[in-house]
């Protein structure tokens, strides 16, 4: 129990959970784990089951595409306050790319099966969580589209 309370405190400090009511946050904390990755550690591999999703407390992770016979191609880096790993929401629940810790990285992760169970029972919590996810996803999609414009090409 003490452990969950500690995790709830960590969740409360992350911008994603800003303004979330305590009950919902405590329920989510029941699926949470505090984790640390060292520089160079892989947090996820493309094609593998997406069993957790992550909230960066501190550090930097790189989203990479694996290129056969070459070093990975980094497509985005994420930092303190960012969120990654929504493959757990979308069938077939597999990671779309590799995730590597660029620096020592501290995260809170939520376990997907635990979460799905809770969300099935508690629609309001599901709504709360998804309402927070959609703006994050929209922002990331907008950034990805900016990247596609090759905006530094001509000046």
């Amino acid at each position: 129990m003490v452990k969950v309370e500690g995790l709830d405190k960590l969740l409360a400090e992350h911008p994603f959970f800003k303004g979330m009511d305590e009950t919902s946050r405590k329920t989510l904390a029941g699926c949470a784990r505090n984790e640390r990755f060292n520089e160079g550690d892989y947090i996820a591999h493309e094609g593998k089951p997406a069993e957790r999703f992550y909230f960066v407390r501190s550090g930097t992770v790189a989203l990479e595409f694996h290129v056969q016979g070459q070093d990975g191609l980094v497509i985005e880096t994420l930092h303190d306050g960012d969120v990654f790993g929504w493959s757990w929401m979308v069938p077939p629940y597999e990671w779309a790319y590799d995730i590597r810790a660029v620096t020592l990285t501290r995260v809170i992760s939520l376990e997907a099966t635990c979460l799905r169970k809770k969300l099935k029972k508690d629609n309001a919590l599901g709504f709360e969580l998804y309402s927070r996810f959609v703006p994050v996803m929209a922002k990331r999609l907008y950034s990805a589209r900016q990247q596609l414009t090759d905006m530094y090409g001509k000046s």
Partner: protein
Amino acid sequence: MSTQIKLDPMTPVPFAVAKRVQELADTFTIELAPTSTDGFVFQPGQFNMLYAFGVGEVPISISGDPSDPSKLVHTVRNVGAVTDALSKLKKGEQLGVRGPFGSAWPVVEAEGNDVVIVAGGIGLAPLRPAIEHVLANRSKYGRFVVLYGARSPADVLYMKQLQMWRGRLDTYVDVTVDHAGRDWAGNVGVVTRLIGRANFDVHHAKVFICGPELMMRFTIKELSDLGVAKDDIYVSMERNMKCAIGHCGHCQFGGHFICKDGPVFPYARIENLMQVRGL
């Protein structure tokens, strides 16, 4: 400004190339040695018309240190006929210079505020004099933020200088690229993503932006979403130029001439024009 140039802004003055540095595959810096005793005085953000003899003349911002008028510095990307001819100039060879022209980054008005520089691609060159100015007068400003975006690590301009600025304890420098290999230890993602975590006071900041227009538009949107007032945002605009003194109308941008009223504009003044398609 040398006396000769003041007398006739339409006549290029010959300058010899004192030094040439290849910055990137398509970008180089040339240092010219002014012959006048007071050197070449300019304000951060101003530009010169550089004349490649027999080929043509193009506007290029001054990218050197405004406190050192003994060196006239330009950083140029080779994109076409004139910039290609300029790229071929060797040490000792000559080109013509008219200027300095245009408006400046409001470095004095910005005193007492946080200063945020957002540059994309070659857009760091016209901002470098403003950065030098702020660093030389550091105690007059609040938090100093330099954000820079480029296509890839191989396209990052002034890498050594960015590292040097970052090494100072009084300056926050963040650099990002659109894509990179694993050997790049910096950020990957668009420059707008750097803004939110730069931690400046959105209500007491002056923001100077230079880069392609699309990049400036994305940046302005992000700043506005964060609550930065339009009056605190300044952009440097580009249009093709001929006379550079407000006579020919080549650089017209709505009711403004970029050469004379710009290139640096308060965003609030040109906001409507930036949204007009095809202008």
